[in-house]
Each structure stands twice: as structure tokens, then as C-alpha cells.
């Protein structure tokens, strides 16, 4: 059964039983999720690791603040929030946690709340969005190499954002860049989808070649924009191509969070159908999946997620490739576990990469996309070797 989908079967040993589990679902995509103990262990471990890393990341930066002071600052922030409500209802009470330790550094508290915390949160959002987008793409294309950056969707989004920057529309506000990034991503995803499919399936080679073509075109567009741009816009374009979370604010968090939530919701709702799609298009159709509608919804989902992932940060590559593959090795290919686990794993990976980006070089901020590609490139290579050794490679 699974032999028809080299993509999913290849990297997995547990495929048959997992697929069967979804296949017996009474209603496609609406099956009540029964999480096994192992599932819960994986999700729990990832969530715990993410939480611990988030706390460590929040406590590490170029402005030295002791861990207890970070915790104290969070309590203080909560306390102030509470106080706001107490005052609003005119209770006259004092919020109870005013005694928490504050950072010794004069600007420590404000720095945490307006520089570091939004950055940590945005890192998690971007990671979750990109990893989830990768997972969904791999599911929809039935192809292990589908990844926003590899097939050119990220750079398509970058072209959208560059258009906004060069034409000066970006001065209307950051949201313009985000919307253009979304539109660019959507157009490119549709393009890649229509170009690389024939007779209802996408071959690995065709997809990769389409990605090369799309990437060549989008990079040419960006190069053209770089050529015509004034120095200021040129700086922004370079920032976009390298990817960075520098300058993250609650504003950018609030702008991309709805995109992420919408994308995650759409992806999770379709998890069961994606599993059925993995059985092959015909089998899925016989099991009641409206394949074309699923594909189109998932393309919009990918565009939403990639838009969220790149709008304020630029191209952060390989997250969508590395994370789902790692998770599949641990958790198997069932999307009901794969999607949330990938989201958590992606958040964890970008959080760690960004921690390096903002602390490795004093007074400087390394490009995040550079770091993820440094990790992702070798991983990609290892993935190729591993697949080749185990099943003779991807045709």
C-alpha cells in the first residue's frame, strides 16, 4: 500500500501501522485523536524542551541579567498586568508580587520586555510556522524534499516583500511587507504546484528542478531590486535575504501570530486527510477526501505559514526541511502527531539558532538564515546519504 509513496515510506519503518491507524478513521479528517503514551511522551518532551530553552534564551543576551532577575521581571510584568486590571475595576488593591527581584541594570527590565521577550516569542512563532509549512508541503506534494526554501516559496515571499520595500510601500507600515510576503508566497506556491505536477503526482526530480527554476527567477528579481534600490532599501533587502530576528517587537509578534494560528488550525484540521493523501491520491479519493480542495486549502495554509515565517525575519532556510524529517524519524509519519511535534521542534530549533545569532559575536547580530543554513546544509547531505543507504535514494 505504502509502496506507492516513496516519500513517506522511505524515511519510515513504522509507516504501515501508523497509516492503518488513520485509514480506519470513520470520517476523513474528523477522526477523534487517540494519542498513545508514546505520542504524549514525544509531545511532552518537546514542549518541556521548548519551555526550558525559552527560559534559558530569555535569560541570555548581550545585556547580562541574572536568571533570578529574569524570573523576577516576568513576575513583575505579570504583577503590573494584574495591577492594571485591579486599578481598572477600581478595587484599590495592590497586586501581590511587587517584591520580585528586578534586574540590577538600570534598563534591564525594559530591555527584557521590549527587546528580548518579543524576540524569543517571535523566534518560536517563526520556527513553528516554517516547520509546519514544511510538513504540510511534504504531505501535499507527497515528496520529502518539499520545503519552503528549497522549492522557492520563501524566496517568492521575499520577492513580495522586496517589492514592498523598493516601491516605498513599506513606509506605510510593517504590515504591508507582511501582506506582500504572503501574496508572494501564495503566488509562488501555486506556481510550483502547477508546474511540478503531472498526472496527479509530483516527482522528486521535477520538484527540485522546478525549485531551481523558481529560485533562479526569484533571485534574479531580488538582484534587480537590489540594483535599482537606494542604499537604505538595499540594506533592507540584504537583511531580508540573510534572515534575522533583529528588531523583533510585540508589534511584529502581534502581526504574525494570527497568521500562524490560522495556518496551524487549518493544518491540524486537515491532519487526517493528509494521512489519507499519503496512501495515494486515488485511495484518498475513495476514502472520501476531496483531494483538489485539500490541496488548494493546504497551499493557502503553506502561504499563510511562510508569510508568518518570513514577513519580519526574511528567509530562514532549512527549518521546514530539517524539523519534519527529524520528527518523522522519532515519531513516524502520522500527521496528527507530526504536525504539532514539528511545530514544537521548529520553534525549538529557531530559538536555539537565534540564541546563537544574538550572542555569539559581541555588539553584533549574526544573520539567522546563515546559521540555519549552516546547520541545515550538512543535515540535508546526511539525509541524502541515509536515504540512499536504506532504500537506494529518491528517484
Amino acid at each position, binding site marked *: 500500500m505504502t509502496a506507492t509513496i516513496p516519500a513517506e515510506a522511505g524515511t519510515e519503518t513504522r509507516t504501515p501501522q501508523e497509516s492503518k491507524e488513520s485509514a480506519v478513521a470513520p470520517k476523513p479528517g474528523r477522526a477523534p485523536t487517540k494519542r498513545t503514551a508514546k505520542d504524549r511522551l514525544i509531545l511532552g518532551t518537546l514542549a518541556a524542551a521548548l519551555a526550558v530553552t525559552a527560559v534559558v534564551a530569555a535569560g541570555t*543576551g*548581550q*545585556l*547580562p541579567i541574572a536568571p533570578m532577575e529574569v524570573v523576577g521581571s516576568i513576575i513583575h*510584568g505579570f504583577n*503590573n*498586568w494584574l*495591577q*492594571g*486590571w485591579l*486599578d*481598572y475595576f477600581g478595587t484599590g488593591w495592590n497586586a501581590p508580587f511587587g517584591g520580585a527581584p528586578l534586574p540590577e*541594570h*538600570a*534598563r534591564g527590565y*525594559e*530591555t527584557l*520586555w*521590549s*527587546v*528580548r521577550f518579543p524576540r524569543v516569542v517571535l523566534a518560536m512563532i517563526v520556527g513553528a510556522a516554517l516547520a509546519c509549512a514544511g510538513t504540510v508541503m511534504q504531505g501535499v506534494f507527497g515528496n520529502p524534499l518539499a520545503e519552503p526554501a528549497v522549492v522557492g516559496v520563501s524566496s517568492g515571499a521575499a520577492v513580495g516583500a522586496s517589492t514592498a520595500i523598493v516601491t516605498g510601500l*513599506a*513606509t*506605510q*507600515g*510593517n*504590515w*504591508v511587507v*507582511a501582506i506582500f510576503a504572503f501574496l508572494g508566497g501564495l503566488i509562488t506556491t501555486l506556481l510550483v504546484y502547477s508546474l511540478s505536477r503531472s498526472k496527479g503526482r509530483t516527482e522528486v526530480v521535477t520538484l527540485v528542478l522546478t525549485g531551481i527554476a523558481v529560485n533562479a527567477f526569484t533571485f534574479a528579481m531580488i538582484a534587480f531590486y537590489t*540594483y535599482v534600490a*537606494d*542604499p*537604505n532599501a538595499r*540594506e*533592507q533587502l540584504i*537583511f531580508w535575504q540573510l534572515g*534575522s530576528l*533583529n*528588531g*523583533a*517587537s*510585540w*508589534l511584529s*509578534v*502581534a*502581526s504574525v*501570530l*494570527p*497568521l500562524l494560528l490560522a495556518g496551524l488550525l487549518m493544518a491540524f484540521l486537515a491532519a487526517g486527510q493528509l494521512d489519507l493523501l499519503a496512501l495515494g491520491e486515488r485511495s484518498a479519493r475513495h476514502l472520501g477526501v476531496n483531494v483538489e480542495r485539500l490541496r488548494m486549502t493546504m497551499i493557502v495554509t503553506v502561504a499563510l505559514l511562510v508569510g508568518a515565517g518570513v514577513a519580519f525575519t526574511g528567509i530562514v532556510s532549512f527549518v521546514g526541511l530539517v524539523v519534519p524529517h527529524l520528527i518523522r524519524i522519532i515519531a513516524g509519519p502520522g500527521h496528527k502527531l507530526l504536525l504539532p511535534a514539528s511545530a514544537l521542534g521548529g520553534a525549538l530549533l529557531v530559538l536555539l539558532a537565534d540564541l546563537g545569532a*544574538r550572542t555569539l*559575536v*559581541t*555588539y*553584533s*547580530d549574526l544573520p539567522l538564515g546563515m546559521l540555519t543554513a549552516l546547520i541545515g546544509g550538512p543535515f540535508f547531505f546526511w539525509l541524502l546519504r541515509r536515504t540512499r543507504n536504506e532504500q537506494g535514494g529518491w528517484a
Partner: protein
Amino acid sequence: MNFSVPQLPAPAGRFGRKKRAAGLLASLAAVALLASGCAPATPGPSGTGSTQTSAAKPAGPVAACTEGTAGKLPLPADWQAPSPATGATKTAAKAPTGPQTANTAAITLPIVANKATPTLPTTVTSCDKQLVDVTDVSRIVTIDLNGTLTEIVHGLGLGANVVGRDRAADFPQAANATVVTPTGHDLNAEAITALNPSVVLTDTTIGPLEVQEQLRAVGIPVIFFDPSRTLPGISHQINAVAGALGVAAAGVELNKLVGADMVAALSMVPQDSTPTRVAFLYVRGTAGVYLMAGPGSGADDMIKAVGATDVGTEIGLKMPFTQLTSEALIKAAPDALLLMTGGLESVGGVDGLVKIQGIAQTPAGANKRVVDVADGTLLSFGPRTGQIIKALSLAVHGAPQ
């Protein structure tokens, strides 16, 4: 939780629970609109306030940007060279051939003699039209691409208060402050905040601008100054910085010192009937990438100041820096080339430079008439500019007779 409150994610008191839910639903649009309101992406000239020229405490806010662009204003009257009719016409020695280096080693930063006590607080209209209150100038961070602001603050006698600066400021007095831009780009908000600055002076030549916004969110007063670098703009920039730091009188005094240097420099510039045609080339590395400076680059003003013609402006370049083809360079046929010392070194000196396609075929390349000037000086447009013009003039024309 209202994310748009810059200080803390605490609820704004006026929002009820229902309104809050609605606010979250509309967060993308609403927050984005707010973003457009705060973005310093297009600092325009401020409409209010006036440049302080007297020592009196300003009545209104100090304008960080002059009305209109500073470049369109004339050079202050007491900065201009005496009219040539009053003295003998200065003619240059025989135009030098071969490589020349502008002697910038002897240049000293003019610093006001009397250490002024800042009159605080001041209110400044930043170039992004935000009103910024300055209450403390004991810990100043100055960051721009050319080191201009660092230089001015030192000239005003407040050099000891500078705790952080950009990499471009290359004069000895600046050495004590921490360099917060080791790569020249990519500011890091936390690293700057760690210096606990009481005020940050910057402009849009360095970024990402989100970092300056973050510094504001942290509660540090951030003032954007005029990003244009022109000769007439210097005195306005000095007055603006002095006014912002509450030492308007020091600004007037510094302007007198700089003006005297400027007059001395401009008086010795030869008045040639056929001005030398000089092109400023920005070259880095041997990959054959070179940009020619044009209007608004700053180099155009410096070339004009030494009585030469800026080739980039003459051939109709529109942008401050334009990537040129070899053929366009040959067609432009400059008499002399002006380069940064670092740039010249990166292509292997004058011998390496003339190997670049197109350069040997120009009159400048054929005569190896190449003038180089230390990196941090030519485009700094700070208090040292008068002396830099003098050094540059000597290098371009040779000593006057």
C-alpha cells in the same frame, strides 16, 4: 493583553474585556496601523522649531532636522572664503601627476575651549517628527555611518560623556568609547542598552531602524538627526546636536572654530578657469566592483569645495553611488580619481587600481593621478571638515604658489 503598549504587555486601563477580545481579532490591522505611525523609515524635515544660533535657552523644541534639506542652504557667510578679487588670484602649481595621499595625519579635531555645563532638560524634534525629551547627557551613544555625530559631540566638549560610538569615528579622542558597530552594520539593541545610555544620537544611515525603535521602547531617548552630508549642513548639524544636548552656546563657539578652518581652507583653493575633473570611486576588493559617487554622496560637495568638478554629477548620475561600466568610466574621462585609502589598499594600491578595466584608459589612470584620503575623514562632515578640505586641496592641486 495589548501588545501595542511599548513598555509592557499590560492592559490599557480603558479597554474592557469585550473590547479587548475585539481588539485582538483586529490586532493585525490595528497594530500594523500603529506601526506605520511610529516607523522612522521616512524622516522628513520637521516643520517646527528653529536652529539655535544664540546661547539663549530655546523657546520651542530644538529641531534635529533643518527646514528643507540642509544641502539646499547656503554656506554660512562667515564660513566662505574672501572673494578672490580682494587677493591675488591663486593659481595652482603645475598639476601633480602620480599618486597623492591627502595628509590627514596632522588634522586635529577642533574642541571648544570652555567646557560647557548642559542646560537641561531640552526637547528635540527628532527627524522622524517625534518629540524627544533629553534630561541627562552624562552617557551619550552616537551612531551613524560616517562618524559625524561622534565627532560633533567631541567638538562640543562633551567627549568624555560618550560611552558608545560607531566604528567610523577614527580620531584619537574617540578611542575610549566602546564601538557598538564592529561590522559597521547590524546594531544590537541589547548591547547598546547594556551601556545604559542616557541619550542616543543617530540617523537613518545605520540600522536596522527597528533597533533604534527598540531603544526607544526601552525608554532611552533616541534622536534622529539629518542623514544628509553636505558642506552647508555642517553648521546646522552642529547647532542641532548642541541644542539637543543643552549646550547651544558651545555649538556657536564650535561653529566659529570650524568656520575659521573652513575660511582658511577655502581661501587657499586655487581658482582655475578650467577646473580639474575629479571622480570619487568607491572600490572594495579586486572583484572589479566600483561605484562612482554622484549628487548627494557627500564626495560631490568635497570635490566642489576644492575647486574641482565632480565628474559623477557632471555626467548626470542620479544616485549617490552608481555602479559604473568600464566604458562609461572611459567616456567620463576624469582628470583625477579620488579614493578612500582603505579602498585603494584593497585593490593593491595604484598599480592594482589601473589594472581594473577602464581605469587605465582615463586621463587619471594614464597619469596615475590618484588621490587617496583616510577612510574616516572624507565623508565625516564634522568639525574637522575645514582641515580635511585643506589637506585634500593640497593633494589634488599641489601647494599654491
